């Protein structure tokens, strides 16, 4: 089995403000399995539940977010571990050592009034005792050096660093303990293209060296194309397609995936990019049946009534669309 198995996960935001009760079904039945030593990309438009999914994967579930069903099972080589049923102390033990995160908005994840090395020390100290300050500083310098960061960074405050630097520092912070799983949520979003490329390169190198699994979330298909081994496409709280990166990019089956791919700029392609018509659905009141049906150009009657199941159609290629399941169903 893989390093992470998610079974029929459902996580809703439940709020009650001045009597307005709302349930936002941010994750509504996701099942996925991620293998060791791969870069797993998750793609989708904004507010499709990607970030929520990451939060649940990292075990950071706080009200109003509530997990209403399903399991998130990790396997770090000593049996499976449901991160959702762990006690706080147990969770603290596996955090950073086994699972670490690179959050969306990395610009503001560093405490603005704390020098970088102190933040590092806080994170390290939480998991192991620091015997000698000198040793610790040397280790950190080495670690940063490997990631191509100058040693002065340690003594700096976050506001001294550029966006790219901050992102590298965050990556450095997330990889101190060589964790098995790194969950990276939009790690490149706020960066310009050149810096973006550097950061991605860095992630790749780390993965190659540390042999860990990276779960990479971004709306940017170009990033996925660049780095991911496998890609899952999320739409409105569900996974609609999952396959190897090459399959998704060249042989996508779901109409939504096709739209995403079409919006990807190609070098030398001067044709006008078409954006997907319509807006993403309101998850507080999602459409019936296939959630993509209001925007789908190939919509059928059944799409409005029933939820298409995620079925395997090829070599670890899964898709949830009646267009496909009908075909393959017919085929059977």
């Amino acid at each position, binding site marked *: 089995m893989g390093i992470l198995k998610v079974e029929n996960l459902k996580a809703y935001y439940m*709020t009650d*403000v*001045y*009597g*307005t009760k*709302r349930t936002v079904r941010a994750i509504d039945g996701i099942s996925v399995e991620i293998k060791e030593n791969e870069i797993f990309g998750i793609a989708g438009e904004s507010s499709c539940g990607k970030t929520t999914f990451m939060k649940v994967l990292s075990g950071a579930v706080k009200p109003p977010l509530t997990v209403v069903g399903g399991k998130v099972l990790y396997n770090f080589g000593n049996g499976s571990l449901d991160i959702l049923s762990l006690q706080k102390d147990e969770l603290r033990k596996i955090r950073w050592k086994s699972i670490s995160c690179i959050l969306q908005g990395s610009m503001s994840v560093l405490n603005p009034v704390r020098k970088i090395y102190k933040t590092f020390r806080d994170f390290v100290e939480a998991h192991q005792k620091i015997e000698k300050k000198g040793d610790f500083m040397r280790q950190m310098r080495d670690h940063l050096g490997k990631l191509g960061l100058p040693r002065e960074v340690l003594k700096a405050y976050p506001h001294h660093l550029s966006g790219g630097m901050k992102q590298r520092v965050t990556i450095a912070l997330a990889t101190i303990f060589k964790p098995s799983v790194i969950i990276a949520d939009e790690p490149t979003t706020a960066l310009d293209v050149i810096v973006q490329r550097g950061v991605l390169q860095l992630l790749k190198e780390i993965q190659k060296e540390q042999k860990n699994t990276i779960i990479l979330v971004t709306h940017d298909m170009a990033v996925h194309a660049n780095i991911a081994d496998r890609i899952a496409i999320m739409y409105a709280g569900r996974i609609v397609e999952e396959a190897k990166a090459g399959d998704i990019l060249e042989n996508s089956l779901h109409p939504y995936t096709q739209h995403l791919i079409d919006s990807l700029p190609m070098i030398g392609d001067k044709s006008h990019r078409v954006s997907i018509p319509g807006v993403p659905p309101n998850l*507080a009141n999602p459409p019936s049946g296939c959630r993509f049906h209001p925007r789908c150009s190939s919509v059928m009657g059944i799409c409005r009534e029933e939820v298409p199941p995620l079925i395997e159609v090829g070599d670890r290629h899964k898709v949830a669309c009646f267009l496909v399941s009908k075909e393959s169903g017919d085929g059977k």
Partner: protein
Amino acid sequence: MISTIKNLYEHDRRFRFAFIVIIGIIIFSSLSFFSPYDPDSSYDVPSDQSPSIKYFFGTSSRGQDIFWKMTFAIRNSLLFGISTALLSRIISILVGLTAGYKGGIGDRILMSINDSFIVIPILPLLILFNFIFQEKMSLFLLSLIMACLGWAWDARLIRSQVLSLKEREFTRTAVYSGMKSLPITLKEHLPFVMPIVFATMINNMLWSMGLEVSLAVLGLSDINTPTIGTTIYWANQHQALVAGVWWWIAAPIAISTLLFIGLYLLFASLNQYIDPRTRLLRMGG
């Protein structure tokens, strides 16, 4: 408006408490119109009677029924607070909108002046004012002066609200469509600024009524007009506490504390209600 109140009333305990208290106090103060006694008269009833069925809050050493006296006192204090708050709102809206909209050097100058007014200790100035004006100092003049000194904090809040509004889509649209800045300010911004104006108004009332108590206790207010402060002043004049007429002090302190807490909770509750993040959740964005 009604639905907002209903909504808040049903779902915010603080608001419910504040609403009941304030409505109660408003009803209480409007009882003054039915008072059997003139607010200025004394020795209408036996003096120094402790609270009883006949005299809810007891009677004072001046032979006044404290219950009825308090109805006038609360009414005047409320009117004083409201008039100060309304008058100072005019200045804060004017300064806040201008500074926020104009920006640049004008904004910087206005805000420097504004900040000066925030930090200048006002009590010594008010004492000086009262001292100079002596008997000419009526409650209204006092509220006018306090309005002139107490607008700055809220002007700053309004300005920051305008600044955030300016970044929004509709302002740009309005600018591109050639609207003049004043109409933009009035038509587009004011409606969004109004909730914050209302919330700060309550806070300003708290401030001005509190200061009035301080001034009156020092005898620096219009002692002939019954207010919360002058009631305490007269009780002190008659050594109510030492003489054991504690109810004379207790009544204004209890009612005003209730009123102050009510107003403050109202302010806190409204403040949360108009907070953009709460608003987002409320409207289901």
